[in-house]
């Protein structure tokens, strides 16, 4: 009976030992992940709205075409101001 107990305890210890080794083996990485060599590519999003103000006010030819001619105001002022 005592021998049985000794064998049972030894068997239990062996199981615990093997289980612990198995866990330890699982946590060790087997290989490192490759580092990215290129910057991430931006994901395409919706096109920005057209900025009509900038589009017109940076276009010299368009401004020349659309600018209202200024009325010449003949001042009646005389002398130094």
């Amino acid at each position: 009976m005592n021998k049985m107990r000794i064998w049972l305890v030894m068997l239990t210890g062996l199981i615990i030992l093997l289980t612990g080794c198995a866990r330890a083996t699982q946590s060790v990485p087997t290989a490192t992940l490759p580092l990215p060599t290129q910057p991430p590519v931006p994901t395409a999003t919706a096109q920005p709205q057209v900025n009509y103000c900038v589009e017109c006010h940076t276009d010299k030819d368009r401004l020349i075409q659309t600018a209202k001619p200024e009325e010449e105001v003949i001042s009646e002022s005389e002398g130094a101001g």
Partner: protein
Amino acid sequence: MAPLEPWEKVLVSASFLESTHGQFTCVQCHGGTQSPDKDTAHTDLIANPYTDSVGRCDRCHAEIMANFPDSLHASLSGYPVAMQSRSVPENHPALQEAYNNHCSKCHSSCTDCHITQPQHLGGGFLDGHNFVKTPPMTRTCTACHGTRVGDEYLGKHEDIPGDVHFRVGRMNCVACHSGESLHNTPPDARGNRYWGEQSPACTTCHTTVGQKDDPILQHTIHGEKLSCQVCHSVSYTSCDGCHVAISEKTGLPFFRTEATYLTFFIGRNPLDNENRPYEYVPLRHVPVAPTSYQYYGENLLPNFDLRPTWMYATPHNIQRKTPQNQSCNSCHGNAEIFLTADKVKPEELNANRRVIVEEVPAPIPGQ
């Protein structure tokens, strides 16, 4: 410079779009609407965001904007003070109307110096809407301060040299007039720019003047009896008789100045002011007349005689050597360069009694 073409006034440069201010969207400052149609896009447009009080200047430049509205550049408070001090309270509404129609346009906002030319030159971007930190002298400063500062400083009067600080020193306006002084007028100077502490003062740079180690004897002899300009300025512009009215033809305000001429007259200091304790200063005739505002009502300046028409002046045509500092008797005993009663219009004698020199300093024997 020639006025800009209409398209040129509003052409935005690519560099503006990359600048800090270019990071705002257009409508954030100018209102309006994003539309390909010009009229729709310009609906409710705010051409000058600062003027229309929806500006964003104060969001980043709060320190400057805290005092700028009270500065003389923004408030022009010297004008109403000068008008009202020759009048009575019951005339103030009529004078206010005249001021609004004829004087208030000279008010300057952030944009008038840092983005565009002054409106009376037709406006338009200085540099493709870029914000110009130091306003260009001839396109902004002297575009407004032309007749009595710019022309003198730049030497535009025949036979009268420009100011030595420009001719030799190549100094622009901000070399002396700091941004701080242009943006902020101390409370005691808001009714008269010659009231607060002298800023700039000649002695800020010319530190030895009047001190123990000053090699020029005349500086220590005259001390604070004379302003620097008495000895170091030459003939400058005076004007007479500005009258204002509204045109019957166009409905637009206009002015007429009777005369503009060059003088150099030393008179008694009209200011009772510890910051300017001089006994003698150069005097300039200002273009006011008892009837200057009569279009807006009869006798609007009943207290005309309470304020001189020959006023404290700081001509911007400084020279090291001038006709009056050639020798002691170039000035002493030389009645021609003093404002004596015979040089004042009879109807203005009473107004100028405080500044007229009754007794010209006597010649110095042996000199």
